[in-house]
């Protein structure tokens, strides 16, 4: 029981991060009807930015953790949203109106470019940083097991919930959110009403990237190590989360992220830890075969 509770906490933490990344997939799909295959790397880049920043801050003797975190978040959100903007400009916009496969290939190209850039500049080895946040709260002590929620886990879960609530509110209640949704539903009509469609699409890429950046910073805080390949794996898992929740659906992405996180952590705890990635890919296949519109998605109407 205590052990299961601990898995629940770990799963929620993981799920929060997958959910944050999944939002980017789902929003971009919603507005242009295509998957952003360079999205997973944003997560990796922000993790490296976080490592670099934390190292610099430690060297500069900045000891206030909230201050350091804020700084790292702002810096990595800035750079990753610039990257999100560039992906749209370079890989997607010039190819709008061509075959659907073309931007997919150019996006994968950008993703490989980015992975290699990071590998060249940062080295292929795993980068560790000293723990940023240590300790936690002991929730429940049984003779043979102690359930604990780490401060870093608490931080991840709380930050994610706050961001998701704020983001949902922005999409449902602000003028920008309405413009964003109008572009999703009828781009031509949106433009006829004065909406700058190109700018809205750019902003969607940038917002998705900024949320993934938060996840990247969090993973650095949580695990204390990053390597240039984490973007791929986290990317595919978050993509699975978005598909499971129903690609294009914002609440779906959050729910999907949560479920994938929980499944992964329980699978690793009770079944085979070394096969935990297989679980995610299995789910991806099953969802695509049995319910391609996902849990909360609309049945796909042909989008061209």
């Amino acid at each position, binding site marked *: 029981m205590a052990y299961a509770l601990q898995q629940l906490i770990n799963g929620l933490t993981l799920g929060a991060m997958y959910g944050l990344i999944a939002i980017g997939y789902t929003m971009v799909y919603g507005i242009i009807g295509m998957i952003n295959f360079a999205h997973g790397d944003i997560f990796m880049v922000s993790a490296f930015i976080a490592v670099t920043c934390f190292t610099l801050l430690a060297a500069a003797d900045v000891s206030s953790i909230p201050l350091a975190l804020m700084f790292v978040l702002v810096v990595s959100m800035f750079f990753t949203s610039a990257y999100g903007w560039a992906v749209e400009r370079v890989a997607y916009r010039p190819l709008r109106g061509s075959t659907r496969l073309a931007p997919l290939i150019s996006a994968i190209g950008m993703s490989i470019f980015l992975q290699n850039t990071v590998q060249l500049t940062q080295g292929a080895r795993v980068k560790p940083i000293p723990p940023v946040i240590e300790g936690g709260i002991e929730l429940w002590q049984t003779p043979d097991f102690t359930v604990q929620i780490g401060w870093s886990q608490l931080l991840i879960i709380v930050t994610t919930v706050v961001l998701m609530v704020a983001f949902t509110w922005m999409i449902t209640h602000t003028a920008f959110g*309405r413009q964003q949704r*109008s572009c999703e539903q009828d781009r031509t*009509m949106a433009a006829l009403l*004065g909406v*700058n469609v190109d700018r809205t699409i750019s902003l969607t890429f940038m917002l998705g990237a900024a949320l993934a950046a938060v996840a990247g910073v969090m993973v650095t805080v949580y695990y204390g190590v990053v390597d240039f390949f984490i973007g791929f794996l986290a990317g595919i898992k978050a993509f699975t989360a978005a598909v499971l929740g129903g690609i294009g659906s914002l609440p779906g992405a959050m729910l999907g992220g949560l479920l994938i996180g929980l499944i992964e952590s329980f699978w690793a705890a009770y079944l085979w830890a070394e096969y935990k990635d297989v679980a995610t890919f299995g789910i991806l296949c099953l969802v695509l075969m049995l319910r391609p519109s996902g849990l909360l998605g609309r049945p796909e109407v042909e989008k061209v």
Partner: protein
Amino acid sequence: MMLTMTGVHAHYGHIHALRGIDVEVQAGEIVTLIGANGAGKSTLMMSLFGNPRASAGQIVFDGEDITGLATHEIALRGISLVPEGRRVFPRMTVFENLQMGAGFAAAENFEADLARVFAMFPILDERKMQRAGTLSGGEQQMLAIGRALMSRPKLLLLDEPSLGLAPIYIRRIFQIVRELNRDHGMTILLVEQNANQALKVAHRGYVLQHGGVTLAGSGEELLASPEVRAAYLEGGHG
């Protein structure tokens, strides 16, 4: 002159949809476009917004050359369209659709404009929080008209606004067109299946055929013209 199109051509791929259009609309006028299916009426309206972009010729709106402007920029100049096929945002509420229409207009006018639209179409007030996609066809048409009015356009383009409406609402639409023009001085470019009624309400009209203007004149002149009578009025219309 509020709108001047000179020698405008437009293409859809290989289809040459507009072939040298010369059309003028004066401030305060109601102008109607008459033409058979496929003549290019909807294309003419959309080409004002650069969708499709004029491949030759010039479009001047309110003294400014808008031929090359981005679609949203043109909309912001004060042109508003009730497009063919309504195109309401199906997964937004009626209220949100109207908010989209008001999008970039002065915020202090919002309540007054909303009240005006609701007075025009009380059903929209009742269905305020309903998703537009679940409205009936006629209700969606009313919403599309209401949405277009929310931005207080200088020039209102109506592409078959009475399509799919019951006769009582068709009369109401023509009445609204008259009122908007007379009481609010709104300039209106109107495309209607019902050429007879359109020519009666309009000050002037153009006849379109195969992407070109074949005839132009005042509403009465066109109503009396034998060609117009033969091609567009006889056979049960009106």
